[in-house]
């Protein structure tokens, strides 16, 4: 604990406990965003191997044909699908779409912005990501 701020920093930012599925979606969005950024950098490095000629290209591509490579690609598929689905939900929300209407609040003050539409959006993104990962596993490990 610091004297000046008492900010929890990243440790508190990534703690999804006690704030519902929306906070878990927030955490997953950050993690998948970082994961996709890492994949993007790795992808640029991977494709740059074509400068080493066909042999170099094939050697590097062989890494993705291993079990570890397949698991990595399955994770990339999951991250991509969740980030896309949840991203569309968040973009709509950021424009004020589907976040409810202002109204005089009644106890127990359930927030209208955390409504079933957004919850369905989050759960759908998770289910779609899981389905895409399973399909990816079936294709890559089913050979």
């Amino acid at each position: 604990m610091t004297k000046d701020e008492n900010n929890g920093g990243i440790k508190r930012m990534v703690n999804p406990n006690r704030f519902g599925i929306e906070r878990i979606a927030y955490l997953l969005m950050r993690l998948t965003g970082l994961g996709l950024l890492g994949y993007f950098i790795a992808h640029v490095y991977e494709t740059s191997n074509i400068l080493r000629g066909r042999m170099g290209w094939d050697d590097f591509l062989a890494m993705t044909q291993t079990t570890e490579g397949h698991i990595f690609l399955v994770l990339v598929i999951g991250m991509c699908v969740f980030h896309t689905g949840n991203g569309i939900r968040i973009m709509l929300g950021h424009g004020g779409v589907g976040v409810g209407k202002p109204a005089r609040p009644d106890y127990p003050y359930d927030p209208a912005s955390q409504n079933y539409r957004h919850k369905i959006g989050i759960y759908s993104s998770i289910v779609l990501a899981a389905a895409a990962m399973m399909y990816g596993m079936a294709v890559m490990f089913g050979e």
Partner: protein
Amino acid sequence: MAQVSSTADEQAPNLLSTSKSVLLKISRFNPESDDSSKFMEFSIPYQKWTTVLEAILDVKKHFDHSVAVRYSCRQATCGSCGMLINGKPRLACFTKISELDSDVVTVEPMNNFPVIRDLAVRFEKLFDKHQKIKPYVIRDDTELESDQREFLQSPEEVEQYIQFANCIKCGLCNSACPTMATDSSFVGPQALAQAYRYVADSRDKGNDDRLNIIDESHGIWRCHFAGSCSQVCPKGVDPAMGIQFLRGYLLGFRN
């Protein structure tokens, strides 16, 4: 009447017999002398209507009067007694021990606020940010210069902002916000919700001023719609809704 008295007399022993005990863990920290916080534990009897604030005051009265806690109205109106109760920002006067459904109640100072001592935190930054967004009706004309003595509004126009006028500035939303955990310069959900409160007010003519204030790197764009602010608000203000509407104005989705 006799029957009512008789019933009350019969119920009194039952109510007393339902008294339970809870282990109250209070975070103790003095920035002037301590390097880290530590917990002190007290076993406190409670009834189903006992609030966390009453339990803390029980500790101050019977065990340790040096526990620092800020409180005033005891009815969720003044916004003074915000703290982390079992890890979640809540008002101590508005949280009954029985509703926590736990044998252990842990109270800590709110996150994202400097600690004065124990459970009391500094609100200067909260109030500064609130002041920054100009929380008042801005108009070119004044009552003195106009024949019209009131700025009339329809009920529909009032509905647009009245929910956000319920803010008691308790700081729970800022404490729950994940962005504020890493960016102390972020304007925060409290101030942003209040910016919307005045932007949505049909009497107000200061929209451009306010939107310019929040349209900056530590302003509205740092909100990622985690929604934790709305989940902890004890007055149903729903800051996340107001922030998204504000962003809708800035993005041109709303007029």
